[in-house]
Each structure stands twice: as C-alpha cells, then as structure tokens.
C-alpha cells in the first residue's frame, strides 16, 4: 500500500489523523519535470534520467493540469482542493479522493515533492 491508500482510503481511513497531516502538506514541483501544453493536450515530461522513464510522458486531463498549475511550493493540499472545488463547482469526498489519487501518482513518479 502507498501513503494514499493507507491514509485516505474511505470510508475506513477518512478520519485517520494522517489525513489532516496530508492535507496540510505543501507540495513542490520537481525541478526535473516540465509541464507542456501541446495543442489541447497537457503533459508532464521527465527531464532527467532519475525521473521515471524518459520514453514515458504523463498525459493529464484538464483538472490534472489545473492541479499542477496550483502547486507552487506555498499552498497546502487542502487549499488546492478548496480552489479546485470552487473553480469546478464540485465538492465532496469524490473530488478529494480524485485529487489525492492524482497527487499520489505524481509523487510516485517523482514529478512532485512534499
């Protein structure tokens, strides 16, 4: 299990104290990742051998691109979630879960750091 699965796997762990810690995490973009918009597509490209596989790129949907845009080394994950909820007029557990899952994937691929 990874940190997302351990700490934020509703409904069992929703109230877990780690969740509060996680939502307070400040996320930073890895210096070894470049964000690119190609036509209507959004991608993350690893720019060093240490990051993922140079032959793999990461395709984001529009919400993923919006989350990436908000990661600035200052905002907490909770603040990012709140902004996404406002912009997309969505809220609730599902949205939070989606954001956590996306952030988890990016951390596993070393595209962002906490």
């Amino acid at each position, binding site marked *: 299990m990874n940190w997302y699965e351990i700490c934020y796997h509703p409904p069992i762990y929703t109230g877990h104290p780690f969740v509060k810690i996680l939502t307070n995490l400040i996320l930073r973009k890895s210096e070894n990742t*470049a*964000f*690119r*918009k*190609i*036509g209507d*597509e959004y*991608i*993350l*490209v690893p*720019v*060093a*051998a*240490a990051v*993922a596989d*140079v*032959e*793999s*790129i*990461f*395709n*984001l949907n529009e919400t*993923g691109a919006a989350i990436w845009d908000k990661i600035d080394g200052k905002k907490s994950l909770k603040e990012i979630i709140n902004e996404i909820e406002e912009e997309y007029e969505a809220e609730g557990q599902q949205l939070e879960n989606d954001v956590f899952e*996306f952030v988890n*994937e*990016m951390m596993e*691929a070393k595209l962002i750091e906490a």
Partner: protein
Amino acid sequence: MESISFTVFSAKFDSPPVKRIPIHGMIEVTRRCPLNCAHCYNNLPLDNQDALLNELTFDEHCRILDEISEAGCLLLTYTGGEIFARKDFLEIYTYGRRKGLLITLFTNGTMITREIADYLATSRPFCVEITVYGYTRETHERVTGVPGSYERCLEGIRLLAERKIPLKLKTMVLTLNEHEIWQLKSFVEDRLGLEFRFDPMITPRLDYSQEPLIFRLPPYKVLELDLKDPKRTSEWRRVAEKFTGCVSGPTSNKEVYYCKAGITGFGIDPYGGMSLCLFSPSGKYDLRKGRFSMGWEDFLLKARSQKISKQTKCVHCAIRDLCGMCPPNSEMETGDQEEPVDFFCEVAHLRAHTFGIPVKPHGECRYCR
C-alpha cells in the same frame, strides 16, 4: 494521470482531423564536421570561418527553444554536420531538455568522449542515432575520407552502449560500401543487439552540387536491397496489399507538398533559417529577425500551401508512395521542386513491378513501358 509513450501520444496528432502543430522539429546546430563523407549533402570543414561567424549563438538557440516549446514542439532532433563540433552543444541540449523537449541526437560518434557519454547518462536523450559507414575500417574510412574515424566511431558507440543510452545505428548505402551492408547489419543487430536501418536514397548537396550522386546505387540495386531485407520486403508487401490505386496525399488541394512538413514538422538551419524541412535549400524564414510563431503561422503556412503550378507525370501518379521523392529532392536535383526525378521514378516503377502493384497511366512516362 496516464503514463503514455511518446509514440502513442504523438499518434493523437496524426489522426484526422490533423491539427497544424509544430510537434516535430529538426535543428542543424552546425554544418561543420570532422569527416568528409563522399555523399554528404551539407558538411563543411571544422574550421570553416564563415560558419563559425554566422552560426546561431547559444542565447539565440535558447530563445528559439523557448519559442518552439511555446508553440507545441515536443520531439526535437539535433543534427549536423557533427553536433559535437559545437563546443557548447551540451549546454544547448540541456536547455532544450529542461524545456521538456524529447531530444534525438544524430551524430557520427567520432567526437563522443567519456565526459559526454557520462553527461548523457544523467540527462538522457530520447534517442541517439549514430551513422556507421562500413563493417571494416577500410570501407568506413573510404566513405568518411578520414583515417582513424572508424575506431573513434566504434568508441563512441561503445561509450553510449555501456551506459545504456537509447541508441540506434544506421548507414547510407553507397557504391563505396554496398558490399558490406549485410555484414554490418548482422554485426549491429546480432553482435551489438542494436536497431539498424539503412537508406540508399542519396541526394545532391544543398548547394545543388551533384557530386554525391556519383556514389548512388542504380535503381535495380535499390530493389535488390529491398528484396534481400525481410523487413523491407514485408513493408513493401504491406503497401502492396493496402494499395487502392488512388493518388495519395492532399492532391485534392493540389499542393506541391504532400508530407507532414509544415503541418507537424519544421527545420531550422545553423544560421536561423527556418523552412518546411532541412532539405529545403530555399525558402527560409529568418529567426534572427522574427519569432518562431510568426514564421510558423505565416511564412511556413504559405510555403506549405503552395499549389502545383504545372502538370507533370507525378501529379497523377498513384505509386508515388513508392518513390521517396519530395519537392526539395527535385529542387536539388533538377532545380525545380515540381520536376520529376528519373532515379526516384525508376525505383518506384521497379518496386511496383516487383511487388505486383498496378501502375495506372499518369502521363508520358518512360518507366511505365
């Protein structure tokens, strides 16, 4: 978030309706080269003063990289001359990598040092393609004209292969090395375990000199290569099976160009001249005087939209996918980008005959008889 290979990602841009995005770029960083290959279309001596004075500076390269990234370029190929003839090449490369470009390097391998290989291992290119011209030293150096180039090329290959840098080898097939192609292919594929490809389609030099053509194989030998290589044979058979008899490309638009140049591709020469592709000897947009976006949106769009100005046998030829000819080839070989080139025409007809593809009448054509 979906992890995806570049091949799968780029396919999104190939399926209709094709959007005009400059996703594939080629940049010649220099035409200077330590080799003097018999067939080369653009090489200059390493110390060529005009080239040294006029090549884009590091800052100009960075600006161009900023602009092509902003416009949507993703796959960039650096070529030469010899890319490592520029002392600041790795700095240019690094800047491009940090912009999120997937970079392929074309090199002859002779200037790759341990330090360069170590660096590429930490900042990996998408691919490195090294051209090797013979199985033996004698043949390789007969083509390159430079003693010692064979050993240095093999050392470059060894340095990159040891570091598991994505590497492919290739060659141009000439009258000078045709006798060693199969040994070379076997050596690369079976002994080195690397991908190998060859190309017999030699073109004139960009300055219109026809000298390289002295070393071009005759059309029937190009066909022999097709038939002796199972991969090429199966590819041509696949073309034959899918053959519809229709003229390919945007003939309904009556455009001179029918490849992806100017649709998803562009080329930039060492002096900042942008064109539809690197083989276009004329028709350049000066990136020293204007932004890439202006050149792409206006100049290259017009160049790409050129209409056919005369009726030749190529216009209604349904087998032109078999010939490999393109407007720059025609311009370099005949001085006219719409003029048929006999060599390509004969190769196409031989291929059609060999693989059972019917050739419809398409005007006065001696090879149809």
